[in-house]
């Protein structure tokens, strides 16, 4: 017992003696903390004035592997394609939302909910079996691949704009949920194995694309993006085509008519946009709707690409 007391006294003494006020050492700046600093070019100033300042979005075009997949063979973007691509993003995605809510009580909502970062990558991402042209992370960041090809193939820009509309649909539906009925329209055919579903089969099941089969959330985003990018007429044709296909008894494998399902989804998207965000999907007597505005912008963008090709 005595020994233990002696031991504890010694230990306590040593612990107390060990206390001292040490200097934490030399203070220095951690290199790179706070991000990269680059010499500003004319392009940087244009991006700031035309994208970052008015729309609160950062455009990252200088290569940063930490923003993309670390293992794929990818290359940076050509500086000369950055400005036309971002102009097209504003023209084909932001402006239509701006115009359609002009004069409503929800005028600036696109600025608040837009993805905050655009990353441009020069080449596509080749995964072996697929070519990835766009990616998005939780409504915050959009990565555009294949940017260097935009004058060679207008579909590069179209696919990029579709990615913007798709991601924005996610963002708005996370802020205000889409109607619950939307999930029930084709509830029986959502599948996690959507990659093994062809586009044709997906449409026979009442979806605009195979990716839409993945979940109701993706279905909602794809439906709105396809409506904007391909227009009302295209969607009406799809409804007719799928209803005709289902009319044949041998094709009636789902409990619902895929054409009717597409019609219900279209109507739910339209109602949701109007009641929640004051966004008219279709034209009214006095005003152009979102689809018309996007379609007109796409025509302009195609003309711009042709001009760029000819000037090149």
């Amino acid at each position, binding site marked *: 017992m005595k020994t233990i007391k002696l031991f504890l006294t010694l230990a306590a003494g040593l612990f107390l003696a060990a206390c001292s006020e040490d200097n934490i050492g030399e203070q220095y700046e951690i290199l790179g903390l706070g991000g990269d600093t680059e010499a500003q070019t004319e392009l940087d100033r244009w991006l700031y004035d035309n994208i970052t300042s008015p729309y609160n979005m950062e455009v990252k075009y*200088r290569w940063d*592997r930490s923003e993309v997949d670390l293992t794929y*063979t990818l290359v940076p973007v050509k500086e000369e394609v950055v400005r036309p691509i971002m102009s097209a993003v504003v023209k084909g995605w932001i402006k239509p939302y701006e115009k359609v809510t002009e004069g409503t009580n929800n005028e600036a909502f696109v600025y608040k909910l837009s993805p905050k970062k655009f990353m441009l990558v020069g080449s596509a991402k080749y995964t072996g079996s697929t070519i990835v042209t766009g990616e998005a992370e939780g409504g915050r960041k959009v990565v555009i691949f294949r940017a260097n090809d935009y004058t060679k193939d207008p579909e590069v820009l179209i696919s990029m704009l579709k990615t913007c509309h798709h991601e924005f649909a996610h963002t708005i539906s996370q802020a205000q949920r889409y109607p619950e009925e939307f999930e029930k329209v084709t509830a029986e055919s959502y599948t996690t194995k959507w990659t093994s579903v062809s586009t044709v089969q997906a449409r026979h099941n009442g979806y605009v694309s195979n990716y839409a089969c993945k979940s109701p959330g993706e279905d909602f985003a794809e439906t709105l993006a396809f409506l904007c990018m391909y227009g009302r007429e295209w969607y009406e044709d799809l409804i007719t085509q799928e209803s005709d296909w289902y009319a044949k008894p041998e094709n009636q494998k789902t409990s619902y008519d895929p054409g009717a399902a597409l019609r219900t989804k279209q109507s739910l998207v339209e109602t949701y946009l109007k009641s929640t965000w004051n966004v008219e999907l279709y034209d009214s007597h006095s005003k152009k709707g979102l689809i018309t505005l996007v379609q007109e912008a796409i025509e302009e963008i195609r003309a711009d690409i042709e001009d760029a090709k000819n000037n090149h």
Partner: protein
Amino acid sequence: MKRSIKYIALIACVGLLGACDLKEDRTYDEPTDIRLARALDEYSRALTSAANGWILLVDSNFGVFRHYLSFDENDRVIMLSDLSANYTVKDGTDTTTAPRQSSYQLKALHMPSLIFNTYNYIHMLCDPTYSVMDVPTHYALYSDFEYSILSFDSGVFTLRGTLNKTTAYLRRATKDEADAVFAEHALMNDYTRIEGHTGSTLSIGGREVSVSFLEAFHAAATANRNRFVDLTWQDEAGAEQRVQGHMWIELETAASGSGVPTRIGLIAPVSVGDVLIASFRWNADTGAYDAVGQDGTVYTKPAGNIE
């Protein structure tokens, strides 16, 4: 007995605690961030102060490519490349004569790194887009455009690629070289000059070694040639042996020009038996390239073979 053990334990504890030394024992005198900042500053000053620019040799799975670079203090780099000298660039760009500007970055990653962060000629080697070059793979030429700086000695940066771990060397160009690149289009002409001298037989370490430069890339596109040197010989048992080196051509200038590039370098030496071959040197007497060993020994075309 029990009491002795307790005392021994007590003394041991006190001894252990007393052994603590509060002094810091650093491998380096200064923190990593300070050393990194200083290194990057040094590299930046070196890159931007080179009056005649730089010659960059980059390795790939298809051999070595030469680039001429000029860096400025606003993160801009101007580039020419010997890529189109014997590779098909599909949009028809002559990378040997049309300077292209882009940006670069010196950055502290795991190591100080040099990154060419917007598109330029160096990226064509890494571009998986089939429409850029006539290369049948989505990995392009397995080269790099982001490099860790392994060392900077005697005006030469030794670099290692981040993705494909390829080797690259960046060295200061001389005024003659810069003039040759711009005025005489040396990046292109060197490949033209080597045509007709792409093979010979040398005696290396008692072996008769057949040397062949720039082997045809693939039959369908004869303009594309790998920047390889192939060395083949028969061993004692009569079996054919073959080694392959990734080659580059030393820039010819007005002063050094002899009609044929004087030196062909290898990005890494190759072994012919127990002899390490590091480069090749033009021999006007034999009308062929001699092999130069790692130790400086010169292996010449045997006298009887002189054509």
